[in-house]
């Protein structure tokens, strides 16, 4: 199976070309180089592919709803995943429920594949919660905003998995997947994570979505050489796939996760994609990239590609599309209703959970604040 690691190229004409299973026109790609990836999807049915398509459409709808909510002042900020649906939905579906995911902050599509209620993510962007969910309910950790920091948490978690049998925990075959962007690969923490993962032979996959822009900084100013080879010096082999190809993303992630979980060590996947939208709702891409470039990637839309494939294989028709549209309409309504129902948390909640144990400093502040608030009340308890 190691041929995947030694032959990253799609063809001999470009040794760095990403591996594909679906081309931008929606045709299946069959080459000698992608045989290992093809084997990974051989058990997928057309129904599975329909699920991928529907999930990608839902992720895109979520993006549209959240962006609109931000424009209406209902969210303080939102980080869209527009353009990265294939990389996220594909890799997300490759995970087992027992695998642990450490997302960055744009992995809404992955969250959906974990069975997360996406609305919960918007608590963070509305400013009512720093997290918003239980990391272990769906084995999807909280978002991490300090770029690359979570690569080490993921690696440590994988080192924990390796020790479980020794502390009487059932030794499962879980693996860990950490999601990173191209910008994160410049962070020292990511290099340290690759080093720790390698020497420990930890069951972890580094899934790098190279969306080509770290806010306004392009790949050319971020790194030299190829990202998928970044781990090699640390002893972490890499694969490059077309991140706008949902099947290739699925296949590479599934292969790498199995590689890791079977004790063969960590793998880095570079999924080459494109951030079709802004970095966040506060960003303005017109200041740093061209319309031509954006159009070039719109023509390689990850959703159009899979839809074309489904249609060509008679697995999708207008009736399906109409049914999906109605479903997404309901989803949108749910998201809007949920966000608007999120009220202001209690003021005193700022003192909750600073420590897991009683703490004199927090207690002092909490008591002072309560007294201060009470000073505005008249004796009957009403506001003065």
């Amino acid at each position: 199976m190691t041929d995947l690691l030694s032959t990253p190229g799609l063809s001999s004409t470009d040794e760095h070309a990403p591996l594909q299973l679906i081309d931008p026109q929606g045709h299946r790609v069959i080459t000698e180089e992608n045989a290992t990836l093809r084997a990974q999807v051989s058990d997928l049915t057309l129904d599975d592919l329909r699920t991928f398509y529907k999930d990608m459409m839902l992720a895109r709808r979520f993006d549209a709803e959240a962006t609109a909510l931000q424009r209406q002042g209902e969210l303080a900020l939102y980080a869209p995943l527009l353009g990265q649906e294939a990389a996220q939905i594909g890799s997300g579906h490759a995970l087992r429920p027992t695998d642990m995911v450490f997302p960055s902050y744009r992995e809404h599509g992955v969250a959906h594949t974990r069975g997360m209620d996406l609305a919960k993510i918007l608590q963070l962007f509305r400013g009512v919660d720093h997290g918003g969910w239980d990391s272990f309910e769906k084995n999807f950790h909280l978002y991490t905003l300090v770029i690359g920091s979570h690569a080490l948490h993921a690696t440590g978690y994988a080192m924990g998995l390796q020790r479980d049998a020794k502390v009487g925990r059932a030794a499962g075959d879980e693996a860990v997947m950490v999601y990173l962007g191209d910008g994160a690969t410049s962070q020292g923490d990511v290099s340290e994570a690759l080093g720790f993962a390698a020497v420990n032979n930890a069951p972890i996959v580094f899934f790098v979505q190279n969306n080509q822009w770290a806010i306004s900084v392009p790949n050319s100013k971020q790194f030299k050489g190829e990202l998928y080879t970044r781990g090699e010096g640390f002893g972490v082999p890499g694969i490059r796939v077309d991140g706008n190809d949902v099947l290739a993303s699925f296949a590479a992630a599934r292969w790498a996760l199995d590689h890791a979980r079977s004790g063969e060590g960590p793998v880095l996947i570079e999924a080459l994609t494109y951030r079709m939208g802004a970095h966040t709702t506060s960003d303005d891409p017109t200041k740093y990239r061209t319309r031509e470039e954006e159009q070039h990637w719109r023509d390689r839309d990850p959703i159009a590609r899979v839809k074309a494939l489904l249609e060509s294989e008679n697995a999708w028709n207008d009736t399906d599309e109409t049914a999906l549209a109605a479903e997404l309409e309901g989803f949108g309504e749910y998201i809007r209703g949920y966000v608007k129902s999120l009220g202001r948390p209690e003021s005193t909640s700022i003192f909750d959970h600073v420590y897991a144990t009683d703490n004199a400093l927090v207690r002092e502040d909490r008591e002072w604040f309560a007294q201060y608030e009470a000073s505005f009340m008249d004796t009957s308890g009403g506001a003065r």
Partner: protein
Amino acid sequence: MTATVPAPQAAPAPNSAKPLPFAKAINAGLRAAMAKDERVLLMGEDIGPLGGVFRVTEGLQAEFGEDRVVDTPLAESGIIGTAIGLAMRGYRPVCEIQFDGFIFPGFDQITTQLAKMHYRSKGRLNLPVVIRVPFAGGIGAVEHHSESPEALFAHTPGLRVVSPGSAQDAYTMIQEAIASPDPVLFFEPKGRYWEKGPVDLSTPIGSDTLNKAVVARTGTDVTLVAYGPTVATALRAAEAAAAEGTSIEVIDLRAISPLDTDTVVASVKKTGRCVVVHEAVTYMGPGAEVAARVTERCFYELQAPVLRVGGFHNPYPVAKLEHDYIPSLDRILDSVDRVLAY
């Protein structure tokens, strides 16, 4: 100044106490914690066969194996960051940072991740990570090996910051730090590693040493507040002052976050005078917080301003000059005289 008799020494150690160097006391505490809970792991640079550059972990890898005493790559952020992941998986990592001046590559993980995870997860995630840091000076070391950065961590909500002042506390406090569900910065006064003190290895944990300061010596005229390496200096100063008829009460803070203000205030209400001693830079240092709190709560009892004896506002000096920098017995007594002169 009122006439005083020399203050009694702190209660003698129990009979089962044996003299043990500070470093051996921590070693014994680590061993006890590891024996009790198999989820306790040690991680750090050179802590395996070598036993750490100060030999604090000596013999532990042989006893507990390489999976529990982990020689890590030379990367402090990596040590703390992976400890966070291990803690998420249910382990209780104890990280050794080789020297105080090398903690800064891990500063981001400590302050932005470790300190906040419990809060941002609304209490769903506990990170019981202990970070052991040999700190402070006095050993004639080269640059970056003698610093006292504890205030930087005490300024970060979510962390506990402690430093034992006696061998017995070193033994007990390291175990209580490991048992705590909160992240703990455990600053070890490296200059005291080889000083022996009575340690009773049968002392149970649970005495709340991470929250409670201790009166290391009772007195009536001046309260000397110290922690970590300056506790011994303060006790020596008190001894010298007693010979001249001044009764000094020494408070060993044990924790600078959270500060046990009540114990300090109770003492100052009695003495009316307070001097705070630490090696950390005086400006914006822990002593400033103690002084502010004492002033707020003892305003009418104070006979003199609270004085601080600490590091000057310069980078830690060269080894040949470090004893001009470290708060000495004479510098402490000078400040004691000054608060008594009011």
